[in-house]
Structures are given as structure tokens and as C-alpha cells.
């Protein structure tokens, strides 16, 4: 019957590659990003005076001349805002107070009627520094000889799952002790011990950070920001200013790329602080590309010492993982990267004996924050390349080794948590097949070497155990629905996927769903942050619940009006239908006005608004010494990547012939968006493997521009990239969906490193795997002359 057919049409929004609901604006240039907002002639321009030293005491800051410059409306220094701010470990202030801890750290800020005047005012600010010995290496920083960067660490505040060591530069030390590692080594037939160094890199969103703040005469603040975290920014900035969170309203337009850089609070606090000194004036701070590269958030560097052992059959027995994270001058966010790197330090491998020490160290380097992968890319770069060599020693083909040792459903993870169902083996098979793993590896010419590499990876959403989502669904007079959410559209397609989910859960066409954007903390429902690859799963659950709530309300009203049972009713394509009587009414007819009783005896119903929320309730704490606990994380997304490459013997240049990336996404709500995420993440991963590095010399970033910080361009990725994803449903995911945002960037460096090794027998100590490094390594190994 017609009803059954319509039902299929509706539920097919799940799994359908529907076009994005923000794309028309984006292709016509009408999509509003934060710097597009118009504030008229009253807008003030902020510029920041930054520390030229990696480590120094601030002896004196004199802003008298700057304040006196005509056109300057406000000048602020650290002492004006002494409260600490931070997501996890509160270790920084909005501007530096008595000490600077990295080159580029904000020390003072100016708001003026033009950029020109603001720049002149900066020059008039006199600051006296006393240089201190600086730390540029995390292992040195963790040693007892190193001077302290945060002597006051013991007085900071932190949550109960972070373990700083006051009196040292150690901001967090996460430990795993599983089984008996010392007893395990003698049982190992093969052991590989390696050290890798992964350099700092930056997110390089094409839109740099931008924030505009204004405080009204009553003291209420509005902050417009390119933000992944409107609610967290509200809470953290309010806390630092000593005001209530609802006294700050954060409005977050489209984001031109985040990748973690726009999570938490970084530069956004500065225009807010300035705005409090010039009430009524909107103050805009936009970072130049140069500032974006090193003054705000970067991905911390890592020194990883990994030792792995297996038995004669190649079965893993032991893993020792010692990681020193180069956290930078502030680790308020980075401490959790260390933790996540720690509790996931086994990778998706089943290993009975594990010793992990994941140590976050203060250094006088740029601030390590949230970066796509949250420690996983750095970890797997070391771990999987060590596994690659172990597989070779054990005489196993890598895919065979991976499938033998990959963690299975029900097995106990490094933290003791039981692994859920997942499709890792299928991912490995898909990648092997795409690359014709067992096929010939013939170079295309005598001056080339050919190799294939494969790597596996996993990641769980890294967040506090009680990170929550909420949503509402409202029915409008035209029968269309508006969905309220607090997660941000940063390019990943969340507005589209949420609309698809709401459409499916309620019973309306996708085209009839509007998203209440931009996210505005005054009206939008709470969302922890747009990070951790958590929105499809967490916010999706909230949206689904809200839509189901609205649907129930609708069916209850109609059932009452029709004197039927709600169980016999359905909503299909925006029409309420009865399977029993074949009565029909469009949602238009009941949306806000309800339905009339018989004989003009009044009305029932009214405006329909559904609500839902989701918060995981089952994540438990972990023992501080052993890292063991019942449930360390909500779930893992697992996957595999591989590359087929050639190396030019004359130059060391890499040519990728083919690549494949397969991940278990649970259920692809929008297959094109899933594939797009995997493609983009893979290329970002490849870019970090081949080109990217923040070149730090004595704390100075020597390449803070696109001229010398290279990223992948279109000609660099002219190879077929296959994305055969896998779907093993997530038990508590909406329609079984699981997150995929970060994962495609995680195993790429290891996969490429393995391919280079296969081609050249050269194993570089860390990325980027530049042509120069490969050429000189081949030369020094006597492979070429």
C-alpha cells in the first residue's frame, strides 16, 4: 500500500548521500564566516604584543604611551586578568603575568580604531624581560636538572584523571601496568626496540582564528568566534573573568576548518578581555597566518621509545611504551592528549603484558593543544612502525601479523576494558585487496624503487566521562521542522547528518529540516565541544531522541483527535497516517495550533517541541598506577591504511601509485560525507607524513608561513585513493553509527614509513619523510652512490 512505500522513502535518509544543506551558501559566497560579520564603523581592531623570548620573567610592562596614542580605546596586560584559565589543567592566564613561557606568548593587547594605530600602539608598549634558561627537549624537561617552567604547578587546579607532578615540569604522567612485562621479555623470540621523534605540526585551517567581542553597559558579553566549542568557551572565559556563564553569549558562525585548533579557549579570551575595558565597542582580533602557525595551538611533538616482543609464531607478548610529549608552555588541553595517548597506547593490538608511561612535559615551545587524532597519529607513527619491523623479524607478512594480533571482540584491552564488536580484519582485507598486496612490486623504471606499506590504528573519543549533548526539534506552521543543536559545522557535515537523522526519526523529508544556526549559546541547546569525532554518535543520539520525542507528542495528539491508538499511526514524508483507518493529515495542520475536538468542543495539542539529550553513563575511572578500569572509553573506531609507492633513486622523491583507507564507521549515515572525511583526513595525514614540520630552533619557529611550511597541494595527491569502509554497528550509536572525523589521519605516517622501508630498507627516525632524508639515508646505507 502507499503507506508502506512512503515509509521506505523516509527511512532512506539514513544511508543516503544527500547533498549538504549548507552547500548552496558556500558555493555562492553567501555563507557567513566570522570575519564576514559586519559591525560598521564602530569596530575596533585588536593586536597582540608577544613575547620574543622562549622563557623569561616579565619585570615590567609600561603601557602609558600606548594608552595615550589617539585612536587607542583599550590596552590590557596580564595583571588586569589574573585568574587562571584552562580546560583540564588550569595553568595559564589570558595574558602572561609574571613569566613568559614560549615565543609568541601574548603579553599585552591593544584595541584601536584601525590596525595601523593598533600596530603603532604595540611599538609604544615597553616591556622588560629577564631571560631564563629555556627547555627545548621534553626528555631534558622531565629530568631533575631542568629548571622549572611552572614552579607553582602545585597550586593549579585539575580534574581527578590528570596527574601532574608539582616540583617538576611534568604536567601529567599516565601509566599502564598490565600483566608482568619483566617476565614477558625472556619469553619473546623476537624483540624490536626503537625510538621515533615526531615533530610539532600545525592544523593549518584555511580560515585563521578570529573572534569579536562586545560588552554592553550592563556587563553582558557577546562573543562571535570561529569556534569548535561555543559552550566551553563561554564556561571557561566566564570562569576566568569571575562571572556567570550565562553572562557571556557565544555566537558561532560557519568555521573554515578547525581540526582541533579552534577547540577550548585560546585567542578568543583576548578580545573579550579588551571589550570589558571599552564597553559598547565591538573588538575584533583576527590572527595573521604567521600568528596562526605558532602562537595559538599546535600539535605537540613526541619522543616515543617503543619496545615490542612476540613469540616464535609472531604472537605479541609484550609492549613497553615510554612517551615524552613536548607539551609547550601551557598544557591545559595537552595533558589529556597524554592521557589518551596512554590509555590507547597498545594500538588495536592484543598484548597481554604492557608497561606504558605517557608523560606530558612543559617545554618552552608553542602550546600543544587538541589536534585531529589527539595523540593517536603520533603514537601509531612509532608503534606501528615498530610492529612492522617485528612482523618482518618474525617472518610474517604484515597483514597476516595484523590479523593475528589485532584485538578481538571480548578481549581485554590495555586498560582492562573489554573490546566491543568491530571490523578491523575486514578493514585490513579491504586495504590489502585495494593495493593488490600480494601482487608484484615491480618498479616502473630502473631508477625507481617500489614498496607497499600498511598500518592499523584506533581511536576513542577523548573527553571527560560526562561529556553531554542535547537537542530540540520544533515543528513550524509549514510542517517543516527546525532542529536545535550545539555542535558546530566545521566542514565535517554535521548539520547535514543531523538533519538526515531528524528527518528519519520524525518522518519528514530531509528537505523539510532546517538547522537552527548559527549556534548561539543564548538559544542553542548545550553541546560539550565539536571534537573527539563524537557528534555523529553523541549529538546524533540527542537529535534522534528529540525527534522521537516530537514524534510521540504528534502521534499522541492525533491519536486522541482521531480516537485511535498511537501504535497504529505513523509519520511518513510529513504526513501523519493511520494504518488502521487510512486517515491522513499533514503536519502542517497540527504544527502549532493543535487539533480541534469534535463538535467545536475546544482544541488539543499545541506547539510541538521535542527534546533529547545524551551523555555516556558508563565510563569509569582508571587506577593511577596501573591504568586499569572497567571502561576507559565509550568505544573505539578502528581502521587500516596502506600505500603503494615508488621512490626515485636520483632524488629520493616519493610517488604514490595508489592508496587505500578503510575504517569501521558502524553505519554510514551519509556515505559521500563519510568518504569525504576519509579522503580529506588521509591527505592531511599524508601531508604530515611527507611535508609538515614546525622547524623550531631555540624556541623560534623558523618557517611560519606557507612559503616554508608546506602542505599537500592538488598535484601532490594525483593517485587513486580508495575508501572501502566497513560497517559493524555501534551498539549505542544512532542507527549504529560511530565517529570517523579524526581517524583517517592517524595511521598514515606509519603506513608511508612502512612503504618506504619496504622499498628502500630505510627506516627514518621520524616524519616528515622528505625526499632529502630518504635520498641521504639511501646514500649513507650504500644503496645508491
Amino acid at each position, binding site marked *: 500500500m502507499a503507506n508502506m512505500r512512503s515509509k521506505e522513502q523516509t527511512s532512506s535518509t539514513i544511508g543516503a548521500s544527500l547533498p549538504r544543506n549548507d552547500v548552496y551558501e558556500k*558555493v555562492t559566497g553567501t555563507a557567513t564566516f566570522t570575519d564576514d560579520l559586519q559591525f560598521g564603523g564602530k569596530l575596533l581592531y585588536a593586536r597582540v604584543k608577544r613575547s620574543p623570548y622562549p622563557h623569561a620573567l616579565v619585570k615590567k610592562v609600561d603601557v602609558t604611551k600606548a594608552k595615550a596614542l589617539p585612536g587607542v580605546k583599550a590596552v590590557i596586560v596580564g595583571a588586569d586578568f589574573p585568574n587562571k584559565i584552562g580546560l583540564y589543567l588550569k595553568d595559564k592566564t589570558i595574558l602572561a603575568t609574571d613569566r613568559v613561557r614560549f615565543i609568541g606568548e601574548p603579553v599585552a593587547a591593544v584595541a584601536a580604531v584601525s590596525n595601523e594605530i593598533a600596530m603603532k600602539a604595540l611599538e609604544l608598549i615597553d616591556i622588560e624581560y629577564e631571560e631564563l634558561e629555556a627547555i627545548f627537549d621534553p626528555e631534558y624537561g622531565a629530568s631533575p636538572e631542568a629548571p622549572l617552567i611552572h614552579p607553582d604547578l602545585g597550586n593549579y587546579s585539575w580534574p581527578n584523571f590528570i596527574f601532574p607532578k608539582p616540583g617538576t615540569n611534568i604536567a601529567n604522567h599516565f601509566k599502564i601496568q598490565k600483566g608482568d612485562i619483566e617476565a614477558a621479555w625472556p619469553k619473546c623470540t623476537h624483540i624490536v626496540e626503537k625510538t621515533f621523534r615526531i615533530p610539532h605540526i600545525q592544523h593549518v585551517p*584555511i580560515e585563521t582564528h578570529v573572534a569579536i567581542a562586545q560588552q554592553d553597559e550592563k556587563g553582558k558579553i557577546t562573543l562571535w568566534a570561529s569556534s569548535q566549542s561555543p559552550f566551553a568557551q563561554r564556561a571557561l572565559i566566564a570562569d576566568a573573568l569571575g562571572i556567570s556563564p550565562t553572562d557571556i553569549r557565544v555566537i558561532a558562525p*560557519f568555521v573554515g576548518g578547525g581540526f582541533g585548533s579552534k577547540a577550548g579557549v585560546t585567542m578568543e579570551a583576548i578580545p573579550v578581555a579588551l571589550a570589558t575595558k571599552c564597553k559598547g565597542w565591538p573588538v575584533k582580533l583576527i590572527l595573521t597566518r604567521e600568528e596562526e602557525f605558532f602562537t595559538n595551538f599546535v600539535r605537540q611533538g613526541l619522543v616515543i621509545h617503543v619496545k615490542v616482543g612476540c613469540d616464535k609464531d609472531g604472537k605479541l607478548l609484550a609492549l613497553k611504551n615510554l612517551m615524552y610529549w613536548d607539551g609547550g608552555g601551557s598544557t591545559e588541553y595537552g595533558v589529556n592528549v597524554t592521557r589518551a595517548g596512554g590509555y590507547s597506547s597498545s594500538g588495536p593490538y592484543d598484548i597481554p603484558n604492557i608497561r606504558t608511561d605517557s608523560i606530558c612535559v612543559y617545554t618552552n615551545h608553542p602550546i600543544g593543544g587538541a589536534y585531529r587524532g589527539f595523540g593517536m597519529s603520533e603514537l601509531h607513527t612509532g608503534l606501528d612502525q615498530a610492529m612492522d619491523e617485528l612482523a618482518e623479524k618474525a617472518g610474517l607478512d604484515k597483514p597476516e601479523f595484523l590479523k593475528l594480533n589485532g584485538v578481538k571482540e571480548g578481549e581485554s584491552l590495555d586498560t582492562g576494558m573489554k573490546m566491543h564488536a568491530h571490523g578491523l580484519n575486514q578493514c585490513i582485507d579491504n586495504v590489502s585487496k585495494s593495493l593488490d598486496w600480494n601482487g608484484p612490486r615491480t618498479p616502473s623504471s630502473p631508477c625507481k624503487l617500489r614498496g607497499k606499506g600498511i598500518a592499523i590504528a584506533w581511536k576513542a573519543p577523548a573527553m571527560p566521562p560526562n561529556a553531554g549533548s542535547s537537542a530540540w526539534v520544533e515543528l513550524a506552521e509549514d510542517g517543516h521542522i527546525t532542529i536545535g543543536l550545539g555542535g558546530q559545522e566545521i*566542514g565535517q557535515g554535521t548539520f547535514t547528518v543531523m538533519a538526515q537523522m531528524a528527518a528519519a526519526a520524525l518522518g519528514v523529508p530531509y528537505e523539510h529540516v532546517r538547522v537552527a544556526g548559527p549556534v548561539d549559546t543564548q538559544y542553542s541547546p548545550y553541546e560539550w565541544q565539536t571534537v573527539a569525532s563524537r557528534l555523529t554518535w553523541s549529538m546524533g543520539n540527542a537529535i534522534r531522541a528529540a525527534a522521537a520525542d516530537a514524534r510521540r507528542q504528534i502521534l499522541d495528539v492525533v491519536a486522541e483527535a482521531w480516537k485511535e491508538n498511537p501504535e497504529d499511526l505513523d509519520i511518513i514524508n510529513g504526513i501523519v497516517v493511520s494504518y488502521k483507518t487510512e486517515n491522513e493529515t499533514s503536519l502542517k495542520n497540527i504544527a502549532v495550533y493543535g487539533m480541534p475536538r469534535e463538535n467545536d468542543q475546544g482544541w488539543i495539542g499545541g506547539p510541538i517541541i521535542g527534546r533529547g539529550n545524551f551523555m555516556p553513563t558508563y565510563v569509569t575511572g582508571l587506577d593511577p598506577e596501573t591504568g586499569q578500569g572497567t571502561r576507559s572509553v565509550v568505544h573505539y573506531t578502528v581502521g587500516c591504511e596502506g600505500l603503494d609507492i615508488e621512490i626515485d633513486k636520483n632524488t629520493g622523491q616519493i610517488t604514490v601509485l595508489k592508496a587505500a583507507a578503510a575504517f569501521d564507521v558502524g553505519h554510514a549515515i551519509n556515505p559521500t560525507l563519510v568518504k*569525504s572525511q576519509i579522503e580529506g583526513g588521509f591527505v592531511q595525514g599524508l601531508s604530515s607524513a611527507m611535508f609538515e614540520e614546525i622547524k623550531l630552533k631555540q624556541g623560534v619557529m623558523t618557517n611560519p608561513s606557507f612559503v616554508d611550511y608546506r*602542505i599537500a597541494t592538488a*598535484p601532490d595527491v594525483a593517485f587513486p585513493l580508495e575508501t572501502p569502509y566497513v560497517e559493524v554497528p555501534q551498539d549505542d550509536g544512532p542507527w549504529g553509527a560511530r565517529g570517523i572525523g579524526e581517524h583517517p589521519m592517524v595511521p598514515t605516517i606509519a603506513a608511508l614509513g612502512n612503504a618506504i622501508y619496504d622499498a628502500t630498507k630505510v627506516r627514518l627516525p621520524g616524519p616528515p619523510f622528505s625526499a632529502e632524508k630518504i635520498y641521504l639515508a639511501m646514500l649513507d646505507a650504500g644503496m645508491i652512490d
Partner: protein
Amino acid sequence: MTLTHITITVNDLAETLDVPQNMTLLTMLREKLSLTGTKNGCTAGECGACTVLLNGEPVNSCMVLAAECDGADITTVEGLAREGKLSRVQEAIIKSGGVQCGFCTPGMLISASALLKRDPHPTEDEIRKAIVGNLCRCTGYVRIVDAIKEAAK
């Protein structure tokens, strides 16, 4: 500072403006004409987010002084659609899924449109070369290249 008086055509509309001499074409478009579709990604001529057509040729508008543009004919992303009808490349990039955050999109569309005008049937290599100066961080360029191929058909 002295202002320069210029007459310029932007998306087929004639404009007369007085511009500060250090103002770039990009800033002039975004702030004087409120055409905020064109984006600033680096102010250094590297990322291509600011690409517009200047007398029919794609340029980084952050590297052109507004004062140099007296008598010039400019097309921005806002000028690609004609009377509400999207251009071939705009339609193609929607269909292929080549838009994620959308920040590189305006510059990318301008470069792509210019390419197809000078070479209606480019090879994939030629497409990639034509957009080497348009950095994208979200898509990996896969579906952008697909879109340009499709629009070329």
C-alpha cells in the same frame, strides 16, 4: 594618508570608490563593497582563498592594490551564478561533494572557472596544476578535481 579615486566594475556593476593606497583589492571587496565571499587565508599570495578574476585572469587579490585597479573588471564568487542560476562548476562541486568547510571554495571556483574558459577540456594533470595555488585542508582535493572534470564534460 592619500586616497586614490578609482572606477571599477565588479560582477558587472560599475563602482566608484576612494581607496587608501595601502588597501588591497581583497580588503576593498570585503570591506568597501561588502562582498565577503572572497576570503583571506594568508595575505601573502600563497593560499588562493582570495582568488578573483582581474580583467578575466585569476589573481590573488591580497597581492593587488585597490589603487592599481582603476578601470579594471573584477569577477568574484558572487558573480559566478547568473540570475540565480549556478554555473556549471558550482553545480558540479555540489554534486561531487567537493565542499566541506567552504572556506577555500570561492577561490577554488574562480580558478576552476578560469581554467575551463581557457581550456575547455583539461587533463587531470592540467586541472591539478591549475589549482595548485588553491590550498584546501578538508577535502584532499579528490572531489574538487572530480567536479572540475565533470564541469568540463
